[in-house]
């Protein structure tokens, strides 16, 4: 094992005796460059016995840090060559920082804004939920696969869990508010899914409900056409088809023509030419009754959209983990 302190001492002298930035850069490359001393030593880790590997790596990292600090302080000491002249601009131009909202927030705000213009309030509910509000009141049967441990993250199985859908907010809203009302609620939901490039255990849903006397599928489809046109422009092609969800009857599937291939069929849309954006329908009479609303007097629609893929397409994000990961960043001043 080479004596790392000896290595440090040798290069320390070289660094501290550098008189100008060129000399300092030369030593820096010698020590910290790609083919520098430190990297050479790192490549030797694999030849070390198992018990030494960790301590050697740790020590090497410590020395590397020391070098970095030393170079930094030496760099500050090296004064620019005095020339006959003057500094005419002290303030830095181009470093003014602009703040940014997260793409999910921007998308939520855009959709909120549209729903507000249609008279919707924005609503909210807890992320730690009970089985009653997440499943029972939404007509999801006890044997439904969504209730399995493989799908739901439990805090106390089977009663306390992390909500798997923002429909739980719908259940609370129906219970708390008196009709008529209209509300939309963006929120985070959790599923017991392995995290990889295309799957995450956290998703972002955008859900909404309208309860009044004469709500129809026409009202609901009109809302979505308006939303899709606002977000994607007037040329957008949407498709509204029959779909089953336990909490609605009749149910509706919401599809958009594929953003990538424009209906021709590609990998993104699995050749079908359409991308599923969400689900909706007329609220099931059982769900209304469970919350104390008389389905003979009132009728409502409910919808749910998944935001993640929507945002990924808009911001050209290829990995779903980026949305909640440390590598999503914003250009500071443009």
């Amino acid at each position, binding site marked *: 094992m080479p004596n790392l302190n000896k290595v440090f001492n040798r290069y320390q002298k070289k660094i501290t005796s550098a008189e100008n930035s060129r000399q300092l850069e030369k030593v820096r490359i010698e020590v910290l460059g790609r083919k520098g001393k430190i990297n050479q030593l790192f490549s030797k880790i694999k030849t070390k016995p198992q018990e030494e590997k960790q301590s050697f790596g740790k020590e090497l990292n410590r020395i590397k840090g020391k070098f970095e600090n030393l170079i930094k302080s030496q760099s500050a000491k090296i004064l620019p060559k005095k*020339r*006959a*002249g*003057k500094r*005419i*601009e002290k303030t830095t*131009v181009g*470093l003014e920082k602009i*703040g940014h*909202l*997260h*793409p999910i*927030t*921007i998308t939520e*705000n855009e959709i*909120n*804004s549209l729903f507000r213009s249609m*008279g919707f*309030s924005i*609503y*909210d509910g807890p*992320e*730690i939920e009970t089985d009653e509000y997440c499943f029972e009141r939404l007509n999801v049967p006890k*044997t439904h696969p969504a209730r*399995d441990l493989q799908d739901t*993250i439990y*805090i106390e199985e089977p009663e306390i869990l*992390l909500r798997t859908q923002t429909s739980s907010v719908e259940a609370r809203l129906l219970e708390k508010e008196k009709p*008529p009302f*209209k509300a939309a609620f963006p929120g985070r939901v959790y599923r017991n899914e392995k*995290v990889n490039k295309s799957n995450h*255990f956290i998703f972002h849903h955008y859900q909404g409900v309208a309860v009044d006397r004469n709500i129809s599928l026409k*009202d609901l*489809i*009109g*809302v979505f*056409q308006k939303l899709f046109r606002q977000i994607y422009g007037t040329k957008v092609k949407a498709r*509204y*088809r*029959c779909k*089953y969800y336990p909490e609605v*009857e*009749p*149910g*509706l*599937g919401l599809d958009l023509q594929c953003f990538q291939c424009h209906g021709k069929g590609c990998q993104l849309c*699995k*050749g079908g030419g359409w991308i599923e954006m969400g689900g909706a329908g007329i609220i*099931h009479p059982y769900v209304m009754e469970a919350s104390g609303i008389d389905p003979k007097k009132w*009728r409502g629609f409910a919808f749910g959209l998944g935001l993640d893929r929507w945002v990924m397409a808009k911001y050209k*994000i290829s*990995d779903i983990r980026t949305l909640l990961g*440390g*590598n*999503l*960043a*914003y*250009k*500071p*001043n443009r």
Partner: protein
Amino acid sequence: MKIVYSELKKFLPDLKKTPRQVADDLTMLGHFADGIKKTGPETVISLEVRQNRGDCLSYYGIAKDLSVFYQIPLSTAKINLPKSSQNYHLPIRVTARKETVRIIALRLSGIRNTASPQWLSKFLSLHEINSINLLVDLTNYITLLYGIPCHAFDTAKSGGKLVWEINRGKYKKFLTLDGTEFELKRETFLISDRIGAASLVMLGGKRAAIDLNTTETVIEMAVYDRVKVRLDAKSLNIATEAGIRLEKDLDPELIPQAHGHLIQIVLENCGGKISSRLYDYYPKKDAPKRISLDLKKPSAYAGIQISKKEIVRILKDLGCQTRIRGAGHLVVIPPNLRKDISIEEDLIEEIIRFKGYNKIPTDQPIAKKSLTDITPPILYLIEKIKTSLAELGYDEVRSWPLIREKYLYRPEGLKAEPIFVQNSVNEDFPILRMSIISSLAFQKKQYQSYKLPDQQFFEIGRIFYRERSCYSEFYSLGIYHHQPQTLLNDIKKMLVKLGLKHQKLKISRFKGADFIEINLEELLKQIKKLPKRSLVREKTGSHAYELTNQIITLDANIFLKEKKDSEKLIKKYSKKIGEKHLWQLAISDVYYDRGKREYKYTFRARYFNIDDKTAKKLHLRKFGLTNSARN
């Protein structure tokens, strides 16, 4: 569910639509077609069948829907079995009575089992089922056609004395056809031959398996209590084609047709004769459901006019019996096949489905009617804070609320307990955060690894904890700035905008960095007046980027004879470098050298999603420098 177009046509001889049109129409009917594939002469449509339509996990069910939609006849195989004078009664017993809906079984003798003909093995392979032998393949073929699983037992192995029973600890192990051994549960529903477990209700066993030497077989087809099948599949962790179907509501009235069809094709293909009387266990038929339908409702639900004539036509085509009851009402008895139809709304959906969802106009959204604003004030506060912080130059981050144990940060003075989840996806992240600082510290570490300069960011999210067996969650704001004093000043500015001048702010140090955290629900209590209109007007430009490499910072000195406007120079070089890899461009210094009578502009360029070698090359080229130049 996969549908081979040529097989579908056997049920619908008058079908004239192309496979693509059929796939699109099935999608509109609720069976999402997620792919069409041409394999040799065959076209296969891949469908996501509605969860409540067990009948549509079959060619028969799909063809039935299409026959109503296209208004063409549905053709089913004519069953013409040879009359048998056999008086042999199968020695079958059913002790699991509560769990069994219907079983039909028959014994065939003198059969000759062989390998399957090409048409059959090809058909099964299109459904991703391996060919085993002719008899087994025919049972699988019929399961696909009618959606009701069936099973053949070799009587030379099982003796034919079959019992449908709940295990109750009698049998310990079960060996599947492929040799996998399962530990049986006490409550497992199985078919035994009174010595061992011959089969599970959703999975065949090795004990009485059909092979090429089989000459006598008992062929059964059954429908069970679907919840029991689901629970068994879950407890044994088994997922089979049969199980997926038996977990749904299937029609026991379809069994005679499907079983008869199976017996017919076995006799045609394997020879042999019927050597027993038909065993039919069907103790309790479901009483027909009578549903009252208000004829005005389908139009009211759809928002378009649907005439009484159309309603009656659709219901009759579906196989419903209808009878007028008073003015404007029908009494409807749905067909047995349609177990999913049980309330008035189910009928309404059927009517709209076959009328066509695409007939509903798309340009008439819900009327804008002024209703009371029920938005919780905290949401207005969050919106306001996010905007203020973005204006102050902070970036919003969103992170995982589940954290590593070493990142658990407890706010000072909080006596509550952290909340652990029972089945976290990633066991390294088992705790719900008690403070946003946990998430921000992790975020900072991540940004550090990408060498992101001048970090200043915030997150608003929930924090969670448990106090005296109660679960609590609150909205909290966490903020980080690489210069703590600036952080304090900025937060003060933000609070002033909210009308709060004298707030005490505390900097918390965690993982070597300084943060400020504010409980927003506490803050809300102190705010007298909150603006209620949405303030967010940020344009949706592409500001956010997915970093794949470290940010690379490089300097360049440019010497000019004349003084230039720094902003214009930045614009010029930004354009030259291009947007793709330029993170930031700034001029950090302008110096006039009297001796040389020239201006030195020091640029600092930051590059992203590019390796350092390529960045350096790009940098030198765009600034017109070489390695030996004055930089």
